[in-house]
């Protein structure tokens, strides 16, 4: 989306040789991206391999990391449980840690939001977007979040206003801004289309 400066930029994940500890966080299709990073980390020093941890959330219960013989892999059913564990790990993590995040955009956004509370900067975090482009939308009127939004217009989960989903992204809130779309003529809505799938 050219011209929207706030819109996050993602890139294929690559292992960072400069890092000392590596924390990989993935969801769903992001598992394949993490595998790629793990294969690179395996070629680094044995110490980096020992200092590697994976947190992976998937609905399908499969473990794509089974064959790697990695000590520290934790699997979760959903993102919330994963984030809770990630917070506990970051609490006792040391300088020299790198984060690798792969998955749908709302998952990346929520992990980044958590990373920011630990003052992790851009040079410590890498992100790759795969899977759904569904958006997390922040209602600028009632401040409720509406998850998994695929349409240009959505009904707010908090105040039921019809919101236009904007391209303006807030890293602090890890969400796109939603602004009332029918303020001047209540009930008159532009066509609703699925555009973020």
């Amino acid at each position, binding site marked *: 989306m050219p011209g929207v400066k706030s819109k996050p930029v993602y890139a294929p994940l690559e292992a960072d040789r*400069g*890092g*000392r*500890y590596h924390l990989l966080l993935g969801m769903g299709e992001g598992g394949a991206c993490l595998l790629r990073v793990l294969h690179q980390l395996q070629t680094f020093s044995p110490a980096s391999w020992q200092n590697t941890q994976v947190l992976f959330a998937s609905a399908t219960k499969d473990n794509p990391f089974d064959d790697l013989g990695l000590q520290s892999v934790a699997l979760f059913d959903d993102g919330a449980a994963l984030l809770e564990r990630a917070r506990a790990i*970051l609490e*006792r*993590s*040391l*300088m*020299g*840690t*790198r984060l690798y995040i792969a998955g749908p955009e709302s998952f990346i956004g929520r992990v980044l939001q958590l990373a920011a509370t*630990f*003052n*992790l*900067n*851009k*040079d*410590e975090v890498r992100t790759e977007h795969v899977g759904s482009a569904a958006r997390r939308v922040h209602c600028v009127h009632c401040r409720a979040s509406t998850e998994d939004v695929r349409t240009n217009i959505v009904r707010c989960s908090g105040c039921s206003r019809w919101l236009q989903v904007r391209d303006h992204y807030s890293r602090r809130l890890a969400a796109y801004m939603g602004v009332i779309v029918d303020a001047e003529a209540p009930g008159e809505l532009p066509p609703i289309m699925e555009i973020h799938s």
Partner: protein
Amino acid sequence: MNPAQTLPVVVTAVEQVTPLIKHFTLASLGGEPLPAFSGGSHIIVVMHAQARTHRNPYSLLGSPRCLDTYEIAVRRMEQSRGGSHYLHDEIEVGSRLDIAHPVNLFGLDKIARKHLLIAGGVGITPILAQLEDLHDGPIPYELHYAVRSPQHAAFAQRLRDRAGERLTMYHDSAGQRLDLGRLLSNQPLGTHVYACGPAGLIDAVVGTARNLGWPDSHIHWERFAAPPVGEAFEAYLARSQLSVRIPPDRSLMESIEAAGVEVPYLCRGGVCGFCQTRVLELDGELLHNDHFLSDADKARAASIMLCVSRARCKRLVLDL
């Protein structure tokens, strides 16, 4: 505001705090408050010595909450071009000086989760003011201060009063060494490290931190370079159409200023990058002495820092 604009001050106290370091207290002539600053700031002190005018950067070490006076500490440099000797030998209570407004190139990161402050020798000065900013605040910090011996430990009592148990001192004379590897390998996420002192200390902090995986955005350091003595050459200012001779003991910046051309600057110590100037022609090589340009930029020789760098050449043409 033009940061190079100066204001006159009077020296209200002078104290020899170590065999090499003198502590000067400055106040405005009329007693009105001095401009506000934050911890880590420096001022340029303008010294009108007999032979020449010196303009040297010195960190402010007093509390940013007390604007009645500014405090600086000056180490007597063995190979001084005259600035530190002038302050040590000529300046006494009642002397007048001109100073430029404070500029901060070494501020604390406002959203850090922890600050790790490392100082060697007179490099403690900006950190003294940073401690005042940290005092009473919620962010944890540690201060590690390395000196030659107890008699060289400037401001030790003030540091103890402020930092208490968060201060660790290392006396080289007693064989006490700061173990950077141990210190930097054991810091929580979100820590920022700040180093000020001799080149060897700064290089060791930056190098050790990077080796341990610290990203550059968490590593901060400040060291003002002094313009080195070199060979004479000619600088031609293309836009001013003016030829300036650069003698061995004057910097490009000083010589260009003396010729009546104003050059922008904030630090005069090779740190801020304000005086970066394009090189148009060169019949020799540039002798870079700044901490601003990357190694790649230095190799390209397309620009030069007028404050501390010079050239070994006959003629250097500048876009000035």
